[in-house]
């Protein structure tokens, strides 16, 4: 397996509307062909990190004010999304954002925007192979599809763009456990078969660490811990805060948690 560094974030800070600082010096590096997961509580800055990479910050009045983002040896921080997507970085937005009034097939065709005019029929077959339920519903308006189908749709749509680096923002959000399992299996398959590098933002830490090779934990706009998935899974703090197990490894009930005793911060 190749293992060059594909993407590197060097100490980046992100500020929204010139005043609200969300990221306070985030550094991480992503090796080629790997799945890297980014974990952390709500408001830790995971989504902002993804948007800083994909350039979508710009449309929300956010800016990388410090540090740099290096993708294949060139700096891409604060480039517009049209440019970044054409380098092969595609973000799948949180909360499934389908084009509701377009059919499934038309939704997938929007994924060809970065390579307009090139043939796309074969890619469509590939997507239907990964996500068979989409094929049955390809003439249906996306607005009438179920949550699981929509998650498949938005991932398939992103794959149509032939991404080198796929940024997945909470693919498990609001899905039934079985569907989550299915989606994660597909993510792993995409990584293995297409060689797509993936950054996976998740709340479902257990699932994410199962398929990821490496993980970063974020808190309050900073990276507080990193390590291979195997190491992270064994870490007692991670076990307690993210996997819901006590130090001894038993499942813990909420009534045993005394909030004042909990270690809330690593730093």
């Amino acid at each position: 397996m190749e293992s060059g560094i594909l993407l590197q974030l060097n100490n980046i800070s992100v500020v929204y509307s010139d005043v609200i600082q969300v990221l306070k010096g985030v550094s991480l590096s992503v090796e080629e062909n790997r799945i890297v997961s980014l974990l952390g509580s709500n408001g830790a800055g995971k989504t902002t990190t993804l948007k800083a990479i994909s350039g979508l910050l710009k449309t929300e009045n956010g800016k990388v004010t410090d540090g740099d983002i290096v993708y294949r040896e060139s700096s891409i921080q604060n480039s517009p999304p049209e440019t970044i997507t054409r380098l092969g970085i595609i973000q799948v937005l949180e909360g499934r954002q389908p084009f509701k009034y377009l059919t499934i097939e038309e939704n997938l065709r929007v994924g060809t925007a970065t390579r307009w005019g090139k043939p796309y029929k074969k890619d469509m077959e590939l997507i239907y192979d990964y996500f068979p339920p989409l094929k049955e519903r390809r003439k249906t308006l996306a607005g009438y599809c179920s949550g699981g189908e929509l998650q498949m749709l938005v991932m398939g749509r992103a794959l149509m763009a032939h991404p080198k680096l796929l940024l997945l923002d909470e693919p498990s959000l609001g899905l039934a456990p079985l569907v989550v399992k299915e989606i994660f299996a597909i993510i792993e398959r995409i990584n293995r078969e297409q060689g797509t590098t993936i950054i996976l933002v998740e709340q479902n830490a257990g699932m994410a660490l199962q398929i990821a090779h490496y993980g970063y934990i974020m808190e309050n706009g900073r990276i507080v811990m990193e390590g291979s998935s195997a190491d992270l899974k064994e870490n007692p703090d991670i076990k307690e805060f993210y996997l819901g197990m006590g130090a001894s490894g038993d499942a813990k009930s909420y009534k045993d948690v005394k909030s004042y005793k909990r270690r809330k911060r690593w730093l």
Partner: protein
Amino acid sequence: MEFFIQLLVNGLSIGFLYGLAAMGFVMIFKASSVLNFAHGELMALGAFVFLVLISWAGLPVYLAFPLALIGCFILGFVVERLFLRPLIGEPLIYVIMLTVGLASIFKGIMLFIWGGNLYTFPDFLPAGLAIHWGSVNIPPVYVVSIAIGLIFLMLFGLFFKYSSQGIYMRSVADNQPAALSLGVHVRKVFALSWAIAALVAGMSGIVLGTINGINVHDLSSIGLKVFPVVILGGLDSIGGAVIGGIIIGLLETFTGGYLSTSLRDVVPYMALVFILMVKPYGLFGLVEIERV
């Protein structure tokens, strides 16, 4: 009966033209949520460009018509580039006010060059196009306007349904952040929607100019009629714009024919008020798909 058929045909052809003009208006609204108050002026500009090409430059129709359309298309691009693009991301009301400003600028320029006179195109349509059917007489202009309306309707329908560029345009109208995340060039889509809107506005301006004569004030006030048309059809439905146009066109000619010509121009607005009270989304407006 002949009178009825005559009115029907006139109403249909005027209606198609209103529909075409409204289609451009809807396109801008769908892509960028901007209400374009300069639409009537774009129609008038199209007519005047054609006038210059056909009667002053003396070009034959088959050259002048496409050239005028290309001119309108480019004009739309330039307007978006110069005036609208710097305002992307600003509150919508600024952009809408800007189009009001653009309307006066265009009107001022046209009045400066051509004054408030009434011009007519030289007779460029072959008389053979006219249809005589019993005592019903359909002049060539009406035949042409219905034909143009149908052709362009079909072209745009195909464009939005099947072409990649059309699908990208619809994706921006549907969910702009998602379109951005997939690399759809949103600014290009805005520019393209202005260019196409200017093109269809110009085209309907040319044909309406052929029917009623070309006058800055008349043509730009037709731009106002776009409002009842699009509100009737639904602000975000291109097909609705055309059907709205036909209904308003028929309403106008029938009122003019059977009641009185002075009521003619009022009826569309009465319909507007009525529709807003009964069906505020219009006949074909999008009813939000809500997932609960």
